[in-house]
């Protein structure tokens, strides 16, 4: 049976892709951000996951408002990175794991989560930037795991509740643990932390709230389900709702986790950047 090694979260700011391309690791602006990743690299090198579940939110590449799934699961052989409108160079496709995708879809729907299956899915910076951060050179890193993308809607309100996100993660855990292969799986949650791009409140960041979320998500994620969606917008900023991905990831890890590393830095672009690596009990 498959095993869940742990979960890794990170912000997925588009500017990071550019910083990686220009190797700005020691640049004074970028260094405090990139310093958060060597421990993640060491952990990945030690554990070498076979599969990666990449929980992210699409920003208007894979989905438009014409058909907007609340929870979408990729079931493709590969996932193309495409132009998001800024003409940046696209990465090569990421290898999928459709047999794992369909196992998850079967299990989730049996568990009464009504998800959308996607046999073609273009993936944007929300998916790609974390892959580049965790597996430098992705998708050509020698230990690149095969992947299943899961996207949750944070574009169009109503968005899912924090409670539903955590429950989704718990159902995902059940699905992964029943996958009949001796495989090692890592779960990613991408996006956040506090930021807001739009309106007169653009540029809003909330360090105190982010710290509260970071502290509670490790051992007390249920506490965070008391936060309403609009309270999340108010306290984390309009795009800080991406914290839902962190909740989904957290649910997949089970109760017993150990914090391996965390990083938090303000600002990267408009965002309070956060990274967290949690290891599951063996």
């Amino acid at each position, binding site marked *: 049976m498959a095993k869940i090694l742990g979960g890794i979260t990170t912000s997925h700011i588009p500017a990071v892709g550019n910083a990686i391309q220009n190797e700005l690791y020691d640049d004074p602006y970028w260094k405090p951000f990139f310093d958060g990743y060597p421990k993640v690299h060491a952990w990945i090198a030690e554990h070498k996951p076979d599969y990666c579940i990449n929980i992210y939110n699409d920003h208007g590449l894979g989905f438009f408002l014409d058909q907007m799934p609340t929870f979408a699961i990729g079931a493709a052989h590969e996932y193309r990175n495409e132009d998001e409108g800024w*003409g940046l160079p696209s990465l090569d496709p990421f290898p999928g794991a459709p047999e794992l995708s369909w196992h998850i879809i079967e299990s989730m729907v049996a568990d009464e989560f009504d998800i959308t299956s996607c046999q073609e899915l273009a993936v944007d910076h929300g998916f790609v930037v974390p892959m580049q951060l965790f597996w430098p050179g992705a998708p050509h890193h020698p230990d690149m795991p095969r992947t299943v993308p899961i996207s949750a809607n944070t574009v169009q309100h109503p968005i899912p509740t924090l409670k539903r996100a955590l429950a989704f993660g718990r159902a995902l855990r059940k699905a992964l643990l029943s996958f009949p292969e001796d495989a090692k799986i890592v779960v990613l949650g991408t996006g956040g932390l506090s930021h807001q791009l*739009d309106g*007169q*409140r*653009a540029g809003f960041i909330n360090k105190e709230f982010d710290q509260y979320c970071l502290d509670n998500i490790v051992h007390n994620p249920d506490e965070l389900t008391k936060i309403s969606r*609009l309270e999340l917008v108010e306290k984390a900023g309009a795009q800080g709702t991406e914290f839902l991905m962190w909740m989904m990831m957290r649910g997949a890890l089970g109760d017993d986790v150990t914090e391996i590393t965390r990083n938090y830095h*303000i600002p990267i672009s408009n965002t309070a950047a956060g990274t967290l690596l949690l290891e599951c009990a063996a």
Partner: protein
Amino acid sequence: MDQPGFDVHIDIPGTTIFDGKQAMKGYALNKMCYEFNKAENREAFKADPEAWMEKYGLNEQQKQAIRDSDILAMIEAGGNIYYLAKLAGIFKLSVQDVGGMQTGRTTEEFKKFLKSQA
């Protein structure tokens, strides 16, 4: 158009919740911006913005907001920032430029403001 049964808004100053109400207003504008994912559509817009806006059926409020490069007015007209970001890309505006434009700051002032929250 309204959603009286689901008017769940708490007032968050300077923040527009992109809900069904906004979606009903902004569909044409957001669709045009979504299709800027493709380089050929960006080029076509640049060549003749008026014709391109007409093709997508933008209303006068939306067209004027774009003529004025007024991001707040685009949001007021139903624009969603994720799609508007693609329009901003055509004008080579960074998210800090866009942040400054919406908050009455220069880009440098906006960057300082971000840093001040560390």
